[in-house]
């Protein structure tokens, strides 16, 4: 395994298989929390935090607990519980460490449990069989890198989208298309642009 694996993992999960625009994961916060650039960035930071930790923990849980016990079929329920408790834990830790950080991130962290990007990336890391391809622990590194790239991609799209929406506020949009419809169409056009990146790396 060479270092390029990690570059490819970041590049492909950030841009080519962008969680929001290509995989439709985390569309709810994408539409819900993207009205202001500040909140979009806050959400992205919180997502990155939880996503990377969740990828790490869920991967280990799957291969060190579920697989030896041969109960892979409880994957969904155990992952979502892990993520829910992780969110609680992260919330508490942030609250303890920094009041300021908690003030800016706290609201978003609570929303993350129902962000399907977190569960989606955790499940996908398993279905893509990184452990089979690279071995257990190198696979863990690739899985975490993928999650990091996905979170970067989420942040990038959130930021870009929120700036577009701020501009849209002042634009003369027909009444029927104001708000969500025009945002979705904007997202569609962004997705078209991202689709052009397909095929750069395999």
């Amino acid at each position: 395994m060479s270092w390029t694996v990690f570059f490819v993992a970041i590049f492909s999960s950030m841009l080519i298989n962008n969680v929001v625009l290509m995989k439709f994961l985390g569309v709810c916060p994408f539409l819900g929390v993207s009205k202001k650039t500040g909140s979009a960035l806050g959400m992205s930071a919180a997502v990155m935090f939880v996503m990377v930790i969740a990828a790490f923990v869920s991967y280990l849980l799957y291969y060190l607990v579920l697989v030896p016990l041969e109960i892979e079929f409880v994957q969904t329920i155990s992952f979502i519980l892990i993520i829910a408790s992780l969110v609680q834990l992260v919330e508490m830790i942030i609250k303890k460490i920094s009041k300021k950080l908690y003030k800016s991130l706290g609201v978003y962290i609570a929303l993350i449990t129902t962000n399907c990007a977190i569960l989606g990336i955790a499940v996908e890391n398993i279905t893509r069989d990184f452990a089979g391809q690279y071995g257990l622990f190198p696979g863990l590194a690739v899985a975490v890198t993928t999650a990091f790239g996905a979170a970067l991609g989420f942040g990038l799209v959130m930021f870009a989208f929120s700036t577009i929406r701020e501009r849209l506020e002042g634009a003369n949009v027909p009444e029927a298309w104001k708000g969500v419809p025009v945002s979705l169409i904007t997202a569609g056009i962004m997705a078209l642009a991202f689709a052009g990146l397909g095929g750069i790396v395999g």
Partner: protein
Amino acid sequence: MANLLEKMKVAAVLLIIGAVSGLAIFGTHTLTEERREENRRMAQLAIYLEMFDGAVAPDDDDIVAIADSSVKEMVTMRDGSGNILGYAFRGEGRISHGDITVIVGIDLDGTIVDVKIADSTQTPSYVQSVRDHYLPKLIDQPIVAMNYDFTSEIAGTSASAGMTFGNVRRIIEDARFIAGDFLSDPIMDAYESLVPDVVSFETFVVFDRAFKEELLVKDDDENTLAYAYLMDLDIDGETVTYVAAYDETEFIGITVFAFDDVPQDAIDAVWAFEGYWNSDFNGLTFDVDGEIENTIAAALTELNTFVENRTWINANTLDYVETLYDGDTVTGYMFIGRSQGLMSINVLEVYLDETGAFQGFTYNQSGDSLNWRTPLIERFGAYEGQTEISQSEAEAAWDDVNPNAPDGETSATGTGQSVYAVISAALDYYSDTLGDE
């Protein structure tokens, strides 16, 4: 106290919910486990089952993993009552443009039933081109004697789709060697009777003489054991392929591809040559009786003359040089050399006259585009008679055949570079070695 009771209640509720949900999930899992396994297995095997009418899903015993080959898996396909219908091979290939998974199905006679590209990350348009234009041509061919001549007839797509097809071809050839173990395989049998340690063989040079093809016969470690020559002879209206083998010093022997439709006379005729097996090929003449035997002897004599006149170089892109005679006078030299071109390795025939002057060249084998290849032959024709072709002359030739040549700099094309590499090696070899004699 009430607080504790409350906590106990929370714990109890959580425990009960957990237990019930665990039971429900486990129950469903147990009930559906067998069916899910079956589904998953069938999904993997679907592509095999599609190829063979009436086939049933193979047992684990019928699926054999294969190591050290581009073929990864061989599956014996059976019908409902256990009769073997044929064999399927799953092979994987890789080029710089991505990976490819190919399934090759053959029936009991070794005839290709179907070739499918199951999965690919290579350039989609090339893969599609291979699917549309190449794969249909493979169906119904015998796997032990594949004919790939059609590749040069597929216009436009040949160079670019060629790399993808190269993967497919490699997988078919590897499948052929695996199938050779249990299929009746007259070709492998023939090679084994001449060179017992043979594991594989590959085309080296093609000819348009009494002998059509020169092959390298290789052992397990890819070492060349011998050189084999195929001769297609007309015996009583049938085309019969004889194969003669040589090593560096000796005529090893001659045999025949004993396909079902080959007349017994044609097969028996090779025994007339038994006395010449394993003898020094220099000055060897074949003195035999009978019509068929004489036909073979004529071709074999032509081949033997070629082998006598050929000097191995095996260095500096050149494989060997054949001295051309008219009677006893040397009239020129033909060099065989190979060099990496744009899309494939180009094998070239370079002709020099007896003074070492350049006469011209042709492509013996090439996967490069004809758009590059043909103009280069004509353009290098301008240097006929020269005993030396300089780098700048070669660059001028490349530029002339390249319509998009940038001004003022050389436009080194892969095809042009490979051509010049072989030609200059031949000219150098003459001036360094042959000219001194």
